[in-house]
């Protein structure tokens, strides 16, 4: 049994302007110790997808269909009390800790200990002792648990955030852009730390980012999202070497290759479609250089183009063959 199976997940937002299909029929799964990278432009639904797993959606957002099976338990069907018990104990989230994910008027150690006390009903001293060990695990001096967030640098806050995420030995850690706003050196350290910990502790890791380049070294699998749908999913090598979706191809060409001549990356012309007025057909066709008449009328279904490698494109085989 897989650790996590997401099947036909549909998360919509009911806004005053209409229904916003932030996540529309998304499928993926995750094994123990495996890392999945979720990549896409801003607003494509990656964060909503992750928040759906812990049912942490804002009140306008609702799961309209699908299943989220965590070790076989459907998270969608659980009551509010049941889901609260699962949070942090089964699924924890590393937010952009460098920004504002830690409470500024509470000691960092207390913020970690309170989660342990909530889920394991142990005494504060014991919880704090465990917090010290967690700090050592993320390579921070144990006595820093008595500091406030403002006394930490951006990288240290992010390490503390990871220590917090590990507090209740979760089965899955979701990193929601955990390295955005950190400088490149610290970014690499944080990613290495996450990489090391998920292998040692055999946890599932979902890494959300808009930066495809950092996923290559950190993840086993990559899912590329566009306008609420996963357009391509596969193992890292498949995504980079045997790309089967024009959008993925354009994303990859968006980061410069330092071994070649200096050229400014092309970027992708156009803007993502208005999610409140979805057009018929493939959502990417207005920006796609391979679009045909079929793409304008018919939504492409996800087809298997290789072993565990899926692409939702009418011309996937042509893209795969280098067009």
């Amino acid at each position, binding site marked *: 049994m897989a650790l996590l199976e997401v099947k036909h997940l549909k998360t919509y937002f009911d806004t005053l302007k209409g229904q916003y299909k932030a996540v529309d029929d998304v499928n993926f799964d995750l094994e123990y110790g495996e890392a999945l990278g979720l990549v896409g432009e801003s607003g494509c639904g990656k964060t909503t997808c992750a928040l759906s797993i812990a049912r942490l959606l804002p009140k306008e957002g609702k799961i309209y269909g699908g299943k989220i099976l965590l070790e076989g338990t459907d998270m969608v069907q659980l009551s509010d009390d049941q889901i609260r018990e699962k949070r942090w104990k089964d699924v924890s989230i590393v937010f952009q800790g460098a920004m*504002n994910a830690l409470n500024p008027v509470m000691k960092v150690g207390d913020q970690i200990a309170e989660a342990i006390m909530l889920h394991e009903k142990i005494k504060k001293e014991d919880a704090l002792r465990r917090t010290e060990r967690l700090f050592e695990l993320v390579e921070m001096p144990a006595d820093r648990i008595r500091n406030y967030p403002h006394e930490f640098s951006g990288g240290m806050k992010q390490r503390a955030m990871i220590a917090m995420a590990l507090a209740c030995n979760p089965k899955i850690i979701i990193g929601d852009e955990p390295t955005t706003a950190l400088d490149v050196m610290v970014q690499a350290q944080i990613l290495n730390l996450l990489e090391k910990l998920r292998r040692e502790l055999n946890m599932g890791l979902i890494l959300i980012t808009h930066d495809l380049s950092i996923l290559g070294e950190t993840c086993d699998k990559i899912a590329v999202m566009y306008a609420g749908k996963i357009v391509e999913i596969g193992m890292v090598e498949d995504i980079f070497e045997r790309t089967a979706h024009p959008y993925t191809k354009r994303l990859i060409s968006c980061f410069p290759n330092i071994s070649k001549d200096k050229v400014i990356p092309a970027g992708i012309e156009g803007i993502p479609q208005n999610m409140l007025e979805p057009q018929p057909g493939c959502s990417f066709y207005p920006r796609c250089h391979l679009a045909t008449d079929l793409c304008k009328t018919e939504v492409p279904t996800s087809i298997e183009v290789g072993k565990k490698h899926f692409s939702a494109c009418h011309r996937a085989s042509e893209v795969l063959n280098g067009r």
Partner: protein
Amino acid sequence: MHKGTIAKKLFYAFVTIMIVLVFNYILFRVLPGDPLAMMMRNPKATPEMIEGIKHFYGLDQPWHIQFFTYFKNMFAGDFGTSFVFKAPVIQVVAGRILPTVLLVGLAEIIAILVGIVIGVLAAWKRGTRLDVGTLGFSLITYSVPTFWLGMIMIVIFCVGLHLFPTSGMFTPGKSFISTGAMLHDLVKHMVLPVLTMSLVLIGEYALTMRNTLIDVLSEDYITTARAKGFRERYVLTKHALPNAMLPMITIIAINFGFIVAGAIQVETIFSWPGLGRLMYEALSARDYPLLQGIFLLVTVCVIVANVLADITYAYIDPRVKN
């Protein structure tokens, strides 16, 4: 907070008070109106009489001599003699402090408590009917002019319903058989002024509390707390409120000074024998020494409240400590 930091804050507070003393002196002398004209309403007063009075109050001296005399006396604890009351300013002011403290203190406490509760409920139940209702209430009470509200109160509760007396602190000429009876009379007189004053303040506190709390509730650390599996109530009391209280402390402190002065309207309308009404009377009569005395007191209140707020801040916000 370091002892040094506190000492520094106190020093700055002292400097501020000194500057205010100078302003205080100049302000009332550049105001239009002449104290002598107010005192000598008698058209038959001879020039000798006017000269005599001028000399008695030191008003015949050149301005710089008056200024230094003012400063010198101030440090000796002599705030001068009131033109109107013909008594030392300190004595006149002292007699009025207690009624104002009673009125303002009670109104402030009620307003803070009610305002915070309304603000928290509105923010927590944002967008519901409760939120819209309390928001309307707060906006109306916040924008209503104090004097108008006071008059409406009198019209409804005194003239219409005969529930409360219209003015004063005690029923004039009444002798009380016991302390209980006296307190009962005091409470009856206090209800309307306190209600008027706190209504005006509640709106401001509730609006501020609501807005800050809504901001705080959208912060990432609130999502973190929810993600950890805590209940909404715990997230609100343990994570959101301590952060949302910080701006409230500042507003309460700033208000503290203003409401002493702001009591002018309420005290005048309800003939409450406090500092506010005294200030109104002193101003009408251009009673320089008395005005200076009251202004100095108000200034010191504002400054002390701010120093206290600074110190409180350091205890509840770890970021301020260093």
